[in-house]
């Protein structure tokens, strides 16, 4: 029985689906104090005075902290984790570290920034007292439009960031300028991916408990090691005094891939008061004070010939950082390295700037730059087809990289400094299969007839590539314990991905046991000296490699010890059913438990000459570079041209993620990702008004897709290209789903209304946006060669009533 490749049911789900999980709010430590924050109501203001006297005397209040109170004890977070690595020099990156204050000291820089922390015996009392903290502000002009914020005279967000340009880079491949100058055809488009947020089901939360000089911090985070290091640095204590552990988590999607001020402050307060202290973020806080994402405005130009071959792309884009873009390489550089997708485009030029504004900071969110890039690229492809009156599928096909061109070199570095070289192939075959699965030819035959019946149906297409399994490293450690169980530790930080099950399948195969018999522990800085976390479609690739390599080392070790015990050569031994057995004589062997005893230090040890005691091995996997997955997505939509309502009927996705360890989990990842992509395409929008006030602060106005908005989803895994860049042959899949829906759905709406040449270049595609696009196109006259203006046959005839 081989477990890898099986649809093994997730072993970690029982507590999660029976209400017996342990999330941050579920801990019940005696004497726990609760924190409520007083947050800035203004986008940009000087703090003139903070009066906490009345609040301090309110019922249940234990302490209140303000910026000046902690000025000398707690340092601001200076996040510079994405300094440019060697190999990225050609991109000429300039990156200023992101500064994030723990509590605003003298100035507030976005609505929602924490100004004071009220500590009380209950959250109710803390919130009551928070209302009594009086703060006088002197409101200042705010920088809100990133294109304006980078110009001289704009309000400056941080003095150390000139012109608010926190990060920039440029990439030149070939000569896009010359290709555009000499082009047969060219087009220019302005394309925007709006500001959205990850909106995990569980908001953030942190609980800190101090015993003696050691503090245990339970935080809902994707990066426990970085949280530990940052807390220790900010409050000036040795890292060994801080242990960060993740309890059960309700998702992260990148929003929890940052170290936040609340994690530092709650830890600090626990150490000052010597009490357990907890803060659980509420939903409004999550919407204004947890990382937002995307928010890019692209100005793109393309050169192409009359057959639709794209010869050059020139793009300039601005990313609205808010008060910080802590991961400019992930959020912005990923755009460049994924921009050209599966296409052969020889000349490529891109200039990017991350510009500070007085809004919440901008973090990578599931897809991290890839959905934004794919939306631009596949809107361009579609516009080329529209311009030349060619079928978009035909134009995609003509630009796809052929198998004989693989491994294709993109002529630029990845964000890890290594050259982008695809380790995948089969692009044309995958695309043809998509057209077949979605019924593209049939659609082309029946579209006009449907339209005559009043059904405006369209199919839109998109493609993507995805560099996965980014470094710097991940850790794995595998033990056989005293009971003979196989116990796995890893530096990843699973929070819904099913990594317990996936990793257990891998280890079960290595040791000849079942996944249920594997004990998997992760997300705890006390387990291992080094670790990173779970984000960027990386854990199965990097933690998987570390775990299989440490498993192989441990197998070698326990076979050597068993060989000593059985007086056999290790090569003649095999493992199975929790035993090391003689090959061909399964009755002869020793149990893992007996091996553990033989490996224990002391007089009873029976170890090969020169071997140290123990049944534990570690491995740190440092990937050579990322491994490339890819995929193709098609959407079928019906559009009501009068109301602009879009009904997504079906989404079809084919993808390559290398070797699949658990199809059930991969399918779930794809499905959830597609739904988040649908959300970003049609519904979700973090809106700030002209004074910097967030306008969507509850789920009444920030619209997530619900089960009622989920269409039929068809997915197929492409067999063919297991990765050669890691021992399991896997590629990441966590972020694949949301990359292509924006382009595919926008292109589908355009196809549905194809007698008009409409443009949909700004997300989300709300009904009002669609109607406005129709009106714009309609005002330019009937553009279709037949001269047919779009009609509303069914709905314009109001029956007898209007007679």
């Amino acid at each position, binding site marked *: 029985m081989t477990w890898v490749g099986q649809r093994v049911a997730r072993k970690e789900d029982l507590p999660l689906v029976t209400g017996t999980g342990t999330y941050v709010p579920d801990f019940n430590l005696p004497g726990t104090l609760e924190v409520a924050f007083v947050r800035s109501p203004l986008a940009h203001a000087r703090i003139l005075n903070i009066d906490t006297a009345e609040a301090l005397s309110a019922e249940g209040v234990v302490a209140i902290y303000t910026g000046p109170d902690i000025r000398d004890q707690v340092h601001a977070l200076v996040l510079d984790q994405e300094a440019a690595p060697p190999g990225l020099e050609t991109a000429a990156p300039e990156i200023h570290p992101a500064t994030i204050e723990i509590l605003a000291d003298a100035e507030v820089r976005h609505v929602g920034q924490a100004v004071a922390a009220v500590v009380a015996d209950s*959250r*109710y009392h803390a*919130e*009551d007292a928070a*209302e009594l903290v009086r703060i006088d502000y002197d409101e200042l002009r705010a920088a809100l439009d990133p294109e304006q914020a980078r110009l001289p005279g704009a309000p400056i967000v941080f003095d150390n960031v000139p012109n608010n340009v926190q990060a920039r880079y440029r990439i030149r491949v070939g000569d896009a300028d010359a290709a555009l100058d000499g082009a047969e055809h060219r087009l220019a488009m302005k394309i925007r991916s709006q500001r959205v947020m990850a909106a995990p089901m569980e908001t953030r939360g942190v609980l800190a408990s101090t015993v003696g000089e050691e503090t245990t911090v339970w935080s809902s985070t994707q990066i426990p090691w970085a949280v530990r290091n940052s807390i220790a640095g900010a409050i000036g204590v040795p890292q060994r005094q801080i242990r960060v552990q993740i309890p059960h988590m309700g998702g992260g999607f990148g929003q929890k891939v940052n170290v936040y001020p609340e994690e530092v402050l709650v830890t600090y307060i626990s150490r000052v008061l010597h009490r357990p202290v907890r803060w659980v973020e*509420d*939903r*409004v806080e999550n919407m204004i004070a947890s990382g937002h994402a995307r928010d890019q405005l692209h100005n793109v130009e393309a050169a192409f010939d009359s057959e639709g071959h794209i010869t050059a792309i020139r793009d300039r884009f601005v990313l609205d950082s808010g008060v910080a873009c802590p991961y400019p390489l992930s959020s912005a550089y990923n755009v460049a390295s994924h921009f050209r997708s599966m296409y052969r485009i020889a000349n490529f030029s891109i200039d990017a700037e991350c510009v500070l504004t007085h809004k919440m900071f901008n973090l990578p969110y599931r897809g991290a730059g890839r959905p934004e890039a794919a939306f631009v690229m596949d809107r361009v492809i579609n516009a080329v087809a529209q311009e030349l009156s060619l079928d978009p599928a035909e134009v995609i096909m003509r630009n796809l990289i052929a198998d004989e061109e693989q491994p294709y070199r993109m002529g630029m570095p990845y964000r890890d400094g290594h050259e982008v070289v695809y380790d995948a192939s089969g692009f044309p075959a995958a695309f043809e299969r998509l057209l077949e699965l979605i019924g593209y030819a049939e659609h082309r035959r029946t579209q006009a007839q449907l339209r005559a019946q009043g059904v405006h149906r369209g199919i839109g297409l998109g493609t993507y590539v995805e560099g996965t399994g980014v470094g710097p490293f991940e850790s794995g450690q595998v033990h056989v314990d005293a009971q003979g169980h196989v116990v796995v530790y890893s530096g990843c930080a699973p929070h819904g991905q099913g990594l317990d099950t996936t990793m257990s399948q891998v280890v079960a195969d290595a040791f000849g046991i079942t996944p249920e018999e594997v004990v998997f522990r992760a997300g705890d800085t006390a387990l291992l000296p080094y670790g990173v976390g779970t984000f960027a479609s990386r854990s199965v690739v990097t933690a998987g490699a570390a775990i299989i390599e440490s498993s192989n080392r441990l197998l070698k070790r326990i076979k050597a010890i068993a060989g000593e015990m059985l007086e056999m050569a290790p090569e003649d031994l095999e493992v199975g059913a929790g035993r090391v057995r003689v090959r061909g004589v399964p009755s002869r062997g020793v149990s893992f438990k007996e091996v553990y005893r033989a490996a224990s230090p002391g007089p009873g040890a029976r170890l090969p000459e020169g071997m140290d005691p123990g049944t534990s091995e570690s491995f740190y996997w440092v990937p050579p570079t990322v491994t490339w997955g890819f995929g193709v997505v098609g959407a079928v939509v019906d559009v009501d041209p*009068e*109301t*602009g*309502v879009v009904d997504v009927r079906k989404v079809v996705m084919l993808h390559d993620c290398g070797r699949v360890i658990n199809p059930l989990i991969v399918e779930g990842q794809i499905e959830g990702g597609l739904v988040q992509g649908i959300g970003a395409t049609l*519904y979700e*929008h973090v*809106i700030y008004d002209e004074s910097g006030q967030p*306008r*969507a602060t*509850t789920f*009444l*106005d920030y*619209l997530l*897709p*619900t089960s*009622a*908005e989920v269409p039929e989803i068809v997915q197929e895994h492409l067999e063919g290209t297991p990765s050669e860049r890691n021992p399991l042959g896997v590629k990441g899949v966590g972020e694949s789903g949301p990359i292509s829906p924006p382009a595919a759905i926008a292109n589908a709406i355009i196809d549905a209304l194809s007698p008009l040449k409409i443009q949909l270049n700004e997300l989300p595609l*709300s*009904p*009002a946006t669609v*109607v*406005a696009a129709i009106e714009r196109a309609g005002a330019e006259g009937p553009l279709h060669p037949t001269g047919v203006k779009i009609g509303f046959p069914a*709905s314009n005839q*109001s*029956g*007898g*009533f*209007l007679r």
Partner: protein
Amino acid sequence: MKPAPFEYHAPTDLGEAVRLLAALGEHGRLLAGGQSLMPMLNLRLARPEAIVDLNRITALAYHRLDDETLVIGALCRQREIERDQEVLARCAAIADAIPLIGHIGIRNRGTVVGSLAHADPSAEWPVLAVLLDATLEVEGVAGRRSIAAQDFFKGLFATDLRPGELVVEARFPLPPAGAGSAFIEVARRHGDFALGAAAAVVELAADGSVTAARLALGGFDSVPVRATPDPAAAAADVHPVDDVHAPAGYRRKLAETLARRALHLAEQRARKAGR
């Protein structure tokens, strides 16, 4: 996200509730299904000094058909109406509207009368009340009075209720047999408050000519509007404003489209019923 402190009262009969409300005046708020009040309390957007919880006054948990009138008590959940096949068969507009109200969990708790008293102009029940010429039976210490739906809604979340009064019953006269009715809306997602809603009743003579038509529009003004039953004229009757979900211009066009479709569908249903 915890409510500010409040007193909590849970009367077990209507008289006690009325006396409590009178004593509390503007400082008291009624709690029925809680689908709007609870989020507002938790967001501290509503900060009443006292809550009067109606949930123990089980005598108000009823609905019935009195001849041509659907009578709904103050504690009747929306789901109760949704599951009454006779009511749904008698009025297609009601049958159309209920599934559009939030989701089943919301309709399990939310009350019809609570939705009316909350007076959200995008909500479905206020539009139905205006369409069907419903009356609201109101009780206070000064006694009982009836208010026509069109006089009840005074503005965004504002009604004709005086301090100390509560709606004890809503009475919806159903369209006559043979009439057709319809309720349609456009919302960003299923179950959201509508960008706009239109509801219509059309009655036909034996020769098929239209003898009467009614149209109500919701979500376009601060109150649900009884509009001229003609799409173009109806669009001129409403005064939409911009919000994060759609600009006013879109909504004005939507009013015309939905008015036309609701009237058309109601008429089609009337013709079908007449055959």
